[in-house]
């Protein structure tokens, strides 16, 4: 029973890990992309359509990531190419992605697919308790953690990561040193889009095997809050995602057990918890701003 519950917590946190890790990379390069929700939905509908049409789940994962990256590319065209206001452009992307995914997905409503298979790691999966929890998950869960680890390594240990952080911290200096600010940011935004797309793809492929309009239900926004919670450090994303997964499952479990609190109040918990966490984190400025990319959200164009 407990194993089952914890397993659902893990699975609920996977889309958040994907999306928040991607957004973290974009934000470390200085780009605030509020379009995560829209990119996730495009990834979700792309993955579902592919899985439904071809039956090939691996292809579905790839298409989900590509759809997210492509949607991120739209953001990049405007926010980077035309130097538009990032907040407003991100909102536009969410509105656009929600609409377009609904339009593309309209014929798919009411159909179901088979979810991803589990990958059981030999020997380890036979361990009591942790075996079921950690070593017999679906492939995307492993992928999420692997990509998170890759991002943590890239940002901290590689030259490319250093350049990316430099661009986010001071784009004028990075430009003066000869780095192409916009190219770095373009790559970061595309990566963020791909990750959001993968996170979105996880919803129809693993959590609920069908497509529904707006099925992300605010997860993109929670991913944005997670980046703040993580104070722009990758591994803290994992902690935050698990906490939010836990809260989501707690309220579902509470509803199932017939807690006397009206279900609406239980459903508010993830959102209220997000606000509470944001307050706790942001009131401690030293902690929350230690790794804050100083140029976050600021427009850059070479010809002043």
């Amino acid at each position, binding site marked *: 029973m407990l194993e089952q519950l914890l397993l659902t917590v893990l699975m609920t946190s996977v889309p958040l890990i994907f999306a928040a890790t991607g957004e973290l990379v974009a934000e470390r390069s200085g780009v605030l992309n*509020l379009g995560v929700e*829209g990119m996730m939905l495009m990834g979700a509908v792309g993955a579902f359509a592919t899985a439904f049409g071809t039956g090939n789940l691996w292809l579905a994962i790839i298409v989900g990531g590509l759809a997210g990256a492509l949607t991120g590319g*739209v953001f990049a065209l*405007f926010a980077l*190419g*035309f*130097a*538009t*206001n990032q*907040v*407003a*452009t991100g*909102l*536009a*992307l*969410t*509105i*656009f*992605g*929600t*609409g*377009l*995914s*609904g*339009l*593309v997905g*309209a014929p798919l409503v009411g159909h179901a697919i088979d979810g991803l298979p589990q990958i059981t790691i030999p020997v380890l999966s036979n361990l009591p308790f942790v075996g079921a929890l950690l070593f017999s998950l679906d492939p995307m869960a492993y992928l999420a953690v692997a990509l998170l680890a890759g991002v943590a390594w890239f940002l901290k240990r590689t030259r490319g990561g250093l350049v990316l952080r430099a661009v986010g911290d001071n784009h004028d200096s990075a*430009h003066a040193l*000869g780095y*192409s600010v916009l190219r770095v940011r373009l790559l970061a935004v595309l990566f963020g889009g791909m990750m959001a797309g993968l996170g979105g793809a996880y919803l129809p492929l693993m959590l609920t095997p069908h497509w529904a*309009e707006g099925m992300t239900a*605010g997860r993109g*926004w929670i991913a*944005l*809050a997670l980046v*703040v919670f993580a104070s722009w450090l990758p591994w803290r994303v994992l902690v935050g995602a698990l906490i939010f997964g836990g809260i989501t499952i707690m309220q579902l479990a509470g509803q199932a057990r017939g807690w006397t609190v*009206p279900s*609406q*109040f239980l*459903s*508010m918990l993830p*959102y*209220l918890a*997000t*606000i509470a966490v*944001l*307050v706790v984190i*942001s*009131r401690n*400025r030293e902690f929350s701003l230690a790794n804050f990319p100083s140029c976050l959200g600021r427009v850059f*164009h*070479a*010809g*002043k």
Partner: protein
Amino acid sequence: MITLSQRKTIPLRLTLLTPVVAIALTLVIGAVIFATLGYHPGEALYQFFVAPISRPDQVADLFVKACPLIIIASGLVFAYRANVWNIGAEGQMILGAMFGGWVALTFPDLSGWVMMPAMIAMGMLGGFLWAMIPAILKTRFNTNEILVSLMLTYVAALLIDWTVRGPWRDPMSFGFPLSPMYADAALITRVYLPGFGHLGGLHWGVIGALVIAVAAWFVLARTLTGFQVKVMGDAPRAGRFAGFNPSLVTIMVLGISGAAAGLAGMVEVSANMGQLQPEISFGYGFTAIIVAFLARLNPLAVIGAGLIVALAELGGDSAQIALGMPKVVTGVFKGILLFMLLAGETFNRFHVRLKMPVTAVREVSDA
């Protein structure tokens, strides 16, 4: 590679031309998307933008649809001018509807002269208080107002859902999640034109919305308050030197935009529904963001922008009925329109050139 170089002055014709070009481009891109998805583009655009306003009473209904958008956007303009990103107008609207509804449902016997002012005041208070949460968290703890105001929208939607299924459900509603009907005094009446009678669903709230937009323009353009808002947005450092209090401006603009959204929620329910329901808004709070930008953050232009965006909303209904398109297609239009408007802003402020990235030499402005 796109290169940008700053213009010294912005020509007036560009300022006026931008929204027109943005709308035209949106239509072209929309047509391409429709064609790609197998709809006849001409037919689709006709259903979207012509069919909904082919009779006078339909034009009146266009104003009815635009009413909440105009009220909310008139308030949002203050926040966005001050660089404060209230994107939770949807939730503030719901709270306004609930506070207004509380008056109507708790004191059904009030006379019209007391009822309506009380409902207006409470509606504004509801939205105001809901907006004070992000305002105080931002000024006290430096918490991001974008995320807080958005999270509160989900909370507000659940809150109204609970009230109409729980404490405020009409015992005579056969189990439907609806509050009792408001008393007559709590309903906003339709406008009676001498000689014409009623024109569509045109109600007094629409007249109120136009007045609010003009009032918002006056405050923003002609008063010290408006000046503070603009300075804090354009030059916060200069504002601080002038002795303006940034926290106070943040609280003020969130309060104004929240109160406006709350009022819109109360008006929407009282004029069009007559009782509280789980869904009272259908995304007006988010759509109003686009209205504010289409109006280039000018409250007077909000009226025209509200009508244009309302047309796209009605067009969504009409395309759904006539062509079987999903309702969300309106979102595609709205998203593209906002993209085009933002890019248009860039074309106003910069010379935009397409170039091969040969060197990173600084552009010399030749404006």
